[in-house]
């Protein structure tokens, strides 16, 4: 065998790497890496973990790839290769201990940080301000937001005060979806009959991209919404202007909204009392009353997830809300 294939292999590897760089450069011009552009404490923690895990993995990957290239190059089968050849050497306690050890250490470090942040993110982001609650309902194929304290509602658009932790309560009146605003933090599923909860916070005013992330049927691709963070005063102003100018969302209006189809951004000055709870209950939430967490803020009745686990709403069995 000659060394042509080995050289080809190296060349191709370099070409692939260069291509990757070019692609990143190219996309850097036009697109935005929203996941790597945190605008709030939750997304920032997640981004730190992403970077940490990438670096830890790189510490292993890069030497392994270098060793691979070196070995294939040096021990290629060509006449006159002077490199040693030990066809029966197959065991080394020392070497094996090293490479059982390295990944164990790496996973140990990463595991520790993972555990720490998983528990940390289950709590509201640190802040002196009182949180605000926004209820999120995914529909076929649009997002309904209701504000239990302000008593207004919106579709495919949500405004929040900047610098204030937001407790999103999530449910669905359609197949499951997932509520994702990458610049503010990771996603959480919306599921019929359950109220889950997700803490997010925007540090600065701005408009952030939000999307449904879990496939829910025909027009899933159009389930986009904007999250707009405004200073508290402007937010309050917006609320009162919505109350004054927008139409009300009536019971029959909601029945209309639930029908499959897409929707434009819409504002409502009010919505039927207890709408969110009704949605959760009619989809089976009534079977979960006993998991009620007393003293929860907001208006949800027993269906809300227990506060103890925070990011998630659930206790015991993975994904199960009841005991």
């Amino acid at each position: 065998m000659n060394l042509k294939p080995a050289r080809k292999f190296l060349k191709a590897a370099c070409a692939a790497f260069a291509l990757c760089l070019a692609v990143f450069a190219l996309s850097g011009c036009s697109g935005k890496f929203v996941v790597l552009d945190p605008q709030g404490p939750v997304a920032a923690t997640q981004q730190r973990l992403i970077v940490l895990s990438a670096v830890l993995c790189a510490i292993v990957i890069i030497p392994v790839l270098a060793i691979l290239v070196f070995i294939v190059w040096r021990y290629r089968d060509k006449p006159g290769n002077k490199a040693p050849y030990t066809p029966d050497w197959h065991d080394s306690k020392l070497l094996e201990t090293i490479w059982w050890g390295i990944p164990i250490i790496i996973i140990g470090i990463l595991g520790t940080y993972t555990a720490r942040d998983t528990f940390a993110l289950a709590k509201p982001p640190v802040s002196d301000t009182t949180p605000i609650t926004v209820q999120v309902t995914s529909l076929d194929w649009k997002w309904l937001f209701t504000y239990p304290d302000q008593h207004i509602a919106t579709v495919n658009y949500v405004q929040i005060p900047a610098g204030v932790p937001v407790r999103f309560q999530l449910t669905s009146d359609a197949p499951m979806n997932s509520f994702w605003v990458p610049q503010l933090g990771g996603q959480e599923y919306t599921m019929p009959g359950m109220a889950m909860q997700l803490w997010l916070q925007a540090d600065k005013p701005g408009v952030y991209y939000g999307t449904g992330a879990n496939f829910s049927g025909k027009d899933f691709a159009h389930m986009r919404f904007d999250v707009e963070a405004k200073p508290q005063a402007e937010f309050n102003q917006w609320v009162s202007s919505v109350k004054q100018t927008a139409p009300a969302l009536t019971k029959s209006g909601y029945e209309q909204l639930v029908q499959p189809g897409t929707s434009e951004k819409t504002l409502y000055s009010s919505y039927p009392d207890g709408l969110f709870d009704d949605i959760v209950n009619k989809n089976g939430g009534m079977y979960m009353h006993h998991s009620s967490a007393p003293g929860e803020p907001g208006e949800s009745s027993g269906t809300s997830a227990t506060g103890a686990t925070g990011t998630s709403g659930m206790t015991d069995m993975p994904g199960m809300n009841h005991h």
Partner: protein
Amino acid sequence: MLTKLKDFASTFFVTGDPLIYGADVAIVLTTIAIVFVLTYFKKWTWLWKEWLTSVDHKKIGIMYLIASLLMLFRGGVDALLMRTQLALPNIQFLQADHYNEIFTTHGTIMILFMAMPMMFALFNIVVPLQLGARDVAYPFLNALSFWLFFFGAMLFNLSFVIGGSPDAGWLSYPPLSEMSHSPGVGENFYIWGIQISGIGSLATGINFLVTILKMRAPGMKLMNMPLFSWSVLSTSVMIIFAFPILTITLALLFVDRFLGAHFFTMTAGGNPMMYVNLIWMWGHPEVYIVVIPAFGIYSEIVSTFSKKKIFGYKSMVFSMMIISVLSFFTWVHHFFTMGAGADVNTFFAISTMAIGIPTGVKIFNWLFTMFRGRIQLKQPMLWTLAFIPCFVVGGATGVMLAVAPADYQYHNSYFLIAHFHQVLIGGVVFGYLAGIYYWWPKMFGFKLDEKLGKWAFWTWNIGFYVCFMPQYALGFMGMTRRVYTYGWDMGWAPLNLVSSIGAFLMGIGFIFQVWQISYSIKYGERDTTGDPWNARTLEWSIPSPAPMYNFATVPHVSEQDAWWAEKQAREAGKRAAAAPALEPIHMPKNSGIPIIMAAFWFVAGFGFVFSWIWMAVAGLLGVAACLLARSFQYDTDYYIPVDEIKRTEASFGRGI
């Protein structure tokens, strides 16, 4: 009457899409062509006697291989249709409904009807030969497994011209897959296609576990067994534990749909989370089920093409067994974001990362098998070498995904898509292709052309990176999976275009392989030695292609790499002890029952799909009749006389 018939036809057949009409025509023409060729050349009897009723593990393996390559083609076309639709924003090539069907069938076919049968092809062809056995433990059951897979796959594939394809994703999460949201028959096709082939998969797992435990050549201790066989053992155990979960889950989903039960709907006290948990309790082990045999293949190839004993054999065995156990404790990482508590998420995050440890050890052991070896860059080794960097990077992104809080950002995004394609293509597909190139001479008696193979290799590989590296970036840009279109606003267009180009490069790679196979049938280098790669394990000690009884005399094994040791001994002038005298060989008889029984399953499945109870009952009665017929069949085996063995061996140039 006529209008009734028209109504029926318009719902029974999929209508309205020119792509589907094209497929209809192609299917009819191909069927006519096949029937014509078989009739013209009078090959029906040959087909029935030599193939359709065969219980020979090698022939069953080849049938698995052909079926899986066809399914690779179908799944690949699905992929290219999707990448065409996503190449640029707002393309009107596919409508939402059609796109949703295509990604659903792409995923289902690639995992269940491409990867699984390709894996079973290699199990069947290689394991008995590696063990020095004459067949698997239960040859009849083995044929039945194949035909169940085949008819299950056909039932599933039928859905795109009859009734309509499933469109709720490859795992069909309820409530989307319930009657309320998917009233068509597509989900029924999904359920019954998988159910029928799933029974076959479970039986294969049992078959190979028993084969490995009971049918090794005398003297072959478990710790001397070739690593591919070890990987099959590990996978068989996983299949036996995982597949019943799938069967039960889909059965419950069917009861929900068919009888209006509420296992997976909240409205009457059920819970979709139960489905999600159950399906991933099968689904996660499933990905290790398909990748572990690839690890076995790499181990054989690295050792053969480095002309060196595998490094750290015990570690290799140990790590595979650890992975197969750990794989059952990671399923929740598929839904960290569905509201499991911090404690649960932490447990499953760390158990997931822990799988990286034994996997990493295997990589090091492969590297150090090559270290101080003599590396020959033949086709099987090329794919193995391409696997290592690809899988290392894919594994690393897997560890990144395991970090639960970070997963809240990756989940359902193109980062995830890039990750699992990298481990499934870079790990599983590369591995099986390497295995096919490696064992091809043993199956067919000739090698696949090197030059065309290199073209295929480079287009596949370059295509892979061009296709999937941009998808990691798209994930960071917030692009979610399963969107059938997107706008210009997010800046996703350039990377999607690049990705689509890569997908088509891989398609060209596949065409090179088809070309390579057709070319090599005629011009490929014939293997007259039975050991074209100077390999190490028992399958290379017999002629290529292997005679129907595999081993004229059963080999005695006393160490690892038995055939290599034998060759060394011969070279050193120490001829092994004289071979024992030939004896008549006990063989199983062919049987038509497996294909007939599976066909009845197909009928039953089709009946259930359309809720035609009369048809379902008729099918099930047929299945029962076949079972009964088999239980009263006593004449199921025969002996190959010594003369015939001598003649066969002589035809390979081996006198005994």
